[in-house]
């Protein structure tokens, strides 16, 4: 069974720290939402609140419309994958996966069957008798995942699930987790500080900063239309131009308005002579680095502003040597996103709706 989860005005103070400030979040049944934020943003605390490992000072947690914030973790019917996986080192893989069914006092036969089924699901079939210590990091994570969903929980919680894996494995597992989540169709809330991870796995991403949600949206929307400079900078690189910088030329509806223009590096292109574009600036190339599938170019305008541009890896870079002076600009006007100062922005969906 899969249920919607609602976080309603949850407030948590730990010692002197106001960790969660009346946060709200709606997760639809079967949806995968990732809480993304720097360390200390409160995302892990919120995950603990949902799991029941952390009590709330005020506010509500609702599973399927039902208040659960007073329920102990045992009664919440959640599955959690911990950052360290927290596999029981003295139990076999099979025993680990069957543990939630043992806790639910299910008969041995069922326990075995479910453990086998779950291990099959995470592609560890036949490994049931191995000990956790003999597994690789990725295998351990699969076991942790299998254990978390073995008892068919209503909500799956993933706490930095990839932190202990190396890069390649991480990418593989991100896809893998997404696949399993789809297959099981379980409402999932993950926590991470890795943008790629959040984008790859999630239906929606919630950006947290200092105990508040800054923006909750689908990955692409977040990336294209950040509501604050913090979000813009947090999700990859961005060229941020204030209205005072005089670059917002020719953008429809921009005249007379204040705000910050956000142009992603891949939209900030070197222009050929005479070509017109949005947000044109003249800058001197200071650094060119080849990153495989793309080039990254850094340039500085005469008044000291840095411009970042990325170009496909197969571009002819003859023109772009360090020291050359060029014009940069955005060819597609719709790719210039303007962040309005607070109070002026009506178009964005309200934070923490």
């Amino acid at each position, binding site marked *: 069974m899969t249920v919607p989860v609602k976080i309603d005005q949850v407030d948590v103070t730990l010692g002197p720290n106001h960790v969660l400030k009346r946060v709200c979040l709606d997760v639809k049944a079967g949806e995968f939402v990732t809480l993304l934020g720097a360390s200390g943003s409160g995302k892990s605390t919120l995950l603990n609140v949902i799991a029941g490992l952390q009590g709330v000072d005020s506010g509500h947690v609702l599973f399927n419309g039902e208040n659960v914030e007073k329920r102990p973790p045992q009664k919440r019917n959640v599955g959690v994958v911990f950052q360290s996986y*927290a596999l029981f080192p003295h139990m076999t893989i099979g025993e680990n996966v069957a*543990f939630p069914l043992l806790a639910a006092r299910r008969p041995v036969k069922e326990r075995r069957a479910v453990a086998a089924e779950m291990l099959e699901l995470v592609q560890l079939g036949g490994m049931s008798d191995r000990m956790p210590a003999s597994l690789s990091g990725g295998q351990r994570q699969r076991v942790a995942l299998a254990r978390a969903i073995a008892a068919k929980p209503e909500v799956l919680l993933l706490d930095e699930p990839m932190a202990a894996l190396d890069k390649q494995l991480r990418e593989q597992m991100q896809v893998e987790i997404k696949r399993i989540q789809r297959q099981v169709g379980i409402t999932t809330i993950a926590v991470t500080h890795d943008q790629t991870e959040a984008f790859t796995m999630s239906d929606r991403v919630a950006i947290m900063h200092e105990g508040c949600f800054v923006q909750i949206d689908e990955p692409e929307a977040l990336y294209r239309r950040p509501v604050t400079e913090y979000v813009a900078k947090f999700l990859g690189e961005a060229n941020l131009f204030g209205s005072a910088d005089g670059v917002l030329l020719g953008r429809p509806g921009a005249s007379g308005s204040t705000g910050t223009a956000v142009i992603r590096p891949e939209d900030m292109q070197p222009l050929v002579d005479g070509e017109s574009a949005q947000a044109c600036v003249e800058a001197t190339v200071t650094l060119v680095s080849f990153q495989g599938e793309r080039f990254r170019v850094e340039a500085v305008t005469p008044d000291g502003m840095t411009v970042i541009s990325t170009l496909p890896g197969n571009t002819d870079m003859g023109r772009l040597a360090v020291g050359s002076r060029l014009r940069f600009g955005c060819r597609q006007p719709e790719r210039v996103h303007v962040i309005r100062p607070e109070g002026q922005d009506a178009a964005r969906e309200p934070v923490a709706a």
Partner: protein
Amino acid sequence: MRTAASALGFYRAPILLVSLLAGLMLFVPFLVLVATSWTSGGLLLFPPQGFSLRWYETVLQDPRWMEPFALSLAVSAAATLLAVIFGTAGALAVLRLSPRSARVVRTLFIVPIALPPVAYAIGLYGVNLQLDALRSSFVTLILGEALIALPYVFVVVSAATGRLDPNLRKAAVTLGAGWPLILRRVELPLLIPNIVAGAVFGFSIVFDEVVLSVFLLPPGVQTLPLKMLSASTEAFSPALTAASTMVSLLALIVLALFAWLSRAGARRMRKVSTP
């Protein structure tokens, strides 16, 4: 080991030398005792007069030695068991307390180590005097010995509870396990090596405890240390050192066997786990 050796440099030789001398302090009296026990004469003497194992035979055939040995095993086992139960419970409880009360409780659990045996025995004896029913039982003796063994168990088990990964508990909780299940299936199994070590330590202390036995045993029975004490105050026979040698060697053999078994067990586990 190489690092340890080289890091100490020129200090290593003197350190080993001093430890060797200190080790002699532990070992030489034992050697002397063993030597006296194989005498063929009847006096407890060093050097021994001739060689024979007659005193070993005497001890093994004499119920006056074997019965106290059996009683000591039973009393120490019972006391150690109580100490293990309460000591382990205490070590687990401390994990769940606020830091401040944890401090107080931890101190309380260790304080009995400082209890002067004579004073404690006299106090327990007072209890026996008040309650006739206790006087002819082993209740006060076992309770007292358990209290003496408790700090050892507590200390050794606490060392392991401190290393328990708190996430295991959290994981178990979110998987629906109540605390009794967590205790039984997660925490206790992980603590087993330390519980066993603590039990062995506590047992060794209690098994050699004599002062409480002096005051608290019912008439007509003796524990082994008490038998040894009375053997050394009434007649100095090589039976005393023969008995003591056998106990020490038995303990060593059991410990070695135990270590060997657990290592073999671990090896077998590894074999099973790695394809």
